[in-house]
Structures are given as C-alpha cells and as structure tokens.
C-alpha cells in the first residue's frame, strides 16, 4: 500500500499543525497555509506521521489516501 497526503486548500485555515508534526510531508506558504510537499507521496517510514497530521488538523483538511 502506498500513502498519499493531500491538503484541501479550501478547508485549510493555517493552524500549521501538519507542518509542525510532519515537516517532511507538509510545507506552509507565505500566509502560513499548508500544502503537501511534492505530489504528497508518503515514504513508508513516515506513514505514522501522515496519520498524526490528519488526526491533529482542526479543520479536517488533510486526506490520507491509500493506494494498493
């Protein structure tokens, strides 16, 4: 299974929890709003961090997609 993270830019309000908890997977723009790094592919070692970021986003703006 490959994981991919995606930030819903309409829902994100810049709480910046994802970038704090999983800086390898998320970056912030000049206003502090988040987006996934690259195409969002999650290296296996970072799977737990991807779910941690999702579980701490107050706006529920993060999706973790599982692809077989």
């Amino acid at each position, binding site marked *: 299974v490959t994981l991919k993270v995606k930030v819903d830019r309409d829902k994100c309000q810049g709480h910046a929890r994802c970038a704090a908890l999983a800086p390898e997977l998320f970056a912030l723009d000049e*206003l502090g709003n988040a987006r996934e790094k690259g195409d969002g592919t999650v290296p296996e070692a970072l799977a737990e961090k991807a779910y941690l970021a999702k*579980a701490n986003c107050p*706006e*529920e703006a993060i999706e973790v997609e599982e692809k077989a």
Partner: protein
Amino acid sequence: MTRPPVNDWSTDFDHLDPRWVENPYPIWDELREKCPVAHTERFRGVYFPSRYEDVRAVAYDTEHFSSRRIIVRETPPPRIPAPPITSDPPEHRPAKNLLLPAFTPDAIREHEPRTREICARLVAGFAGKAGCDAAADYAQEIPVRVIAVMLGLPEEEGDRFRKWIHEILEAGITRPDILMKAMGETSAYFQAEIDNRKSAPREDLITQLSRATIDGQPITEDHLLGALRLILIAGIDTTWSAIGSCFWHLAQHPDDRRRLVSQPELIPTAVEEFLRAYAPVTMAREVIKDVEIGGCPFKAGEMVLLSFPAANRDPRMFPDADRVVIDRKANRHAAFGLGIHRCIGSNLARMEITVALQEWLKRIPDFHLDPAAKVTWSEGTVRGPRKLPVLFG
C-alpha cells in the same frame, strides 16, 4: 457588582456568575447532556452551544452568524471595527491576509530568542525566593513584552496595556463608559506612534502595517488603528491566561510536572493538551438571520457565545475529555477557533507558551500551590488565573 443568582443554567445562564468564573466545566458538562444549546435572556439574549459539533457549525456559518460583534456585553456599544476579527466575508480575507505574513511559524521563530531571554530574566528574578505569583510575576509579563517588541513599543509599557485590556475585555462588559474611554486612549496612543514613524520609519509591525495596501489602496486610518488595537488586545491576556493555566495544572499534578522535566521533548505535545483542556478564549457572534443549529432555533438579533473551551471538553470529540493527558496523540482541539477566524496569533502563542514552560522548568522543577493563598480567575471573554501563588520545592 452583585448579579441576580442563576437557578437554571439551561434557560438563564450568566457567564459572569461567580460559579461559572470559578469552575465552568461541570456546568458545561451538564448542559452538554441536558440542553446542548442553552439560552439566557440576560445581556439581551444569548445562546450557548456546548457541543463541539454545534460550536463548529456556528463558527463555519458566516451567513447566519456575524463577527461584527464578538463580545457579549450588557449594553452593546457602537460597533468598533478591529479587522479582521470583526470582519465578515468578503472583507475578512484581505484584512486577514494583511496580517498573516508576520505571524507564520517562520516569522515567529525570529522572536523566539528574545522571548527566551525575557522568560529567563523573569525566572531569575524570583527563582531564589520561596515562591511567586506565577500569574502576576511570570505569565502576565511574557506576552505583553513580546507583543511590545513586535509592534515596536517599549517593553515597559506593560502596565498601561494591561489596564486597557482589562477595561476593554472585562470592566467594559458592564460599563460602556469605561470601554469607550479605553478605546479613545488606545486610538490616541497608536495614532501618535504611527505619526512618529511617518518621519522615522522603523523595522516594526506598526511601520509595516501603516504602509499596507489592499487592492493597491492604502488601508484607512480606522482600519489601521483597529488592526493595531486587535494585535495589542488579542495577543496579551489570551496567552497570559494560557500560560497561567499550564502552571496551575502543573502545580497540582506532580507526575505531569516530573515527566515534562525529564522529557522536555514532550512539552510541545503537552502544550496542545493544555490548550485543549484550558482553552482561554470564548468568542461571540451576532445572529443576523434566523437559523436552526443542533435542533435549536437561533433568532436574529441575539448573540451566541462561541465557547471553544466547552467544545474542547466534549467527550464525543475527545476521549477522556475531562482528563489532561499530556501525551495525547490525536488532538484536534479548537483553542484557536475554527474556520475563517482562526486566531492569527496561534503560532506566536504556541511559541510563547512552550518557551515559558521550558525556561521555568529548567530552573524550577518543583512547585505547588500555596495552600494559604487563593487562586483567582479572570471573567468574560478570556479565562485564566489572575492570581496564582505557588511555593517552590
């Protein structure tokens, strides 16, 4: 001032009632199960949703709920804009984008060394004594100095700022005359600072914002004064309260304290849990169109207390909601609000709280509440300890 006593929190709540001020959590727990949207005729009609999902629904619904009034007061004053917190769409977004770049995590990181220096200096001032007032001698002194530095104002102006904040957020709830006087004073104060910078610009937020434009147009003087007043007011007693609540908790929970001393890397996670459990800020909204939320009709013209602190204690959202679990993993708390009005200063507050804990715990790992003294709490929009006498050792 004495207020008529409350007999029924569901139909006649009063957030200035001494029981609510002292310990609101049992009241909210009861309301959440019995009457998830409480109401009062006091303050000319106010609703109080206590469940996370209803608080979220109100926060997201800018069509029926306006931010033009964000504090429940006995007598509503003329509207006092403090953009973006008092703005609704579509004016909200450009007003907020103006302030956001100065408050991103990267921008805030630059203020960390100075914050650490301020905290260390304060701790050094009392570490050799038997104890201190952790609220008055420590928590309240940190954000006021950091905000002053950011705005470009003297660090020593703290007393003046705190007086205005008390007048605007607490005393002004029942006394419009006090409120309006403080508004006049803050405007005059900032106007003078803006004028000074016209001839001699500095590297500070006042200079930066006085040059700000929206759609190529300079912002109005009222907008600028409102935004500066917002930064001053919203950035100080909120964070002071959050820091104070951390110490109130740690003074009574030696296990948590020892754990943070031996595992300082856990402090940022613990800060999120303190923010959840002791969220300081309750905002308000004005109902501008009739609507139903959580099965309860909301009538236009009345106010809503938007209690992020109550939402954060909802067991439907947080397992063991009434327990402070300092290593809580999943913590989608709403201490900084939800939706478009997410607190601009959240990254600043998190940095200040974290540094305040780190610097204190390094020097003073052991402390407890002074059994001979009483802890007192602020009332109204922001909840936090105002007197917190602790003994060291």
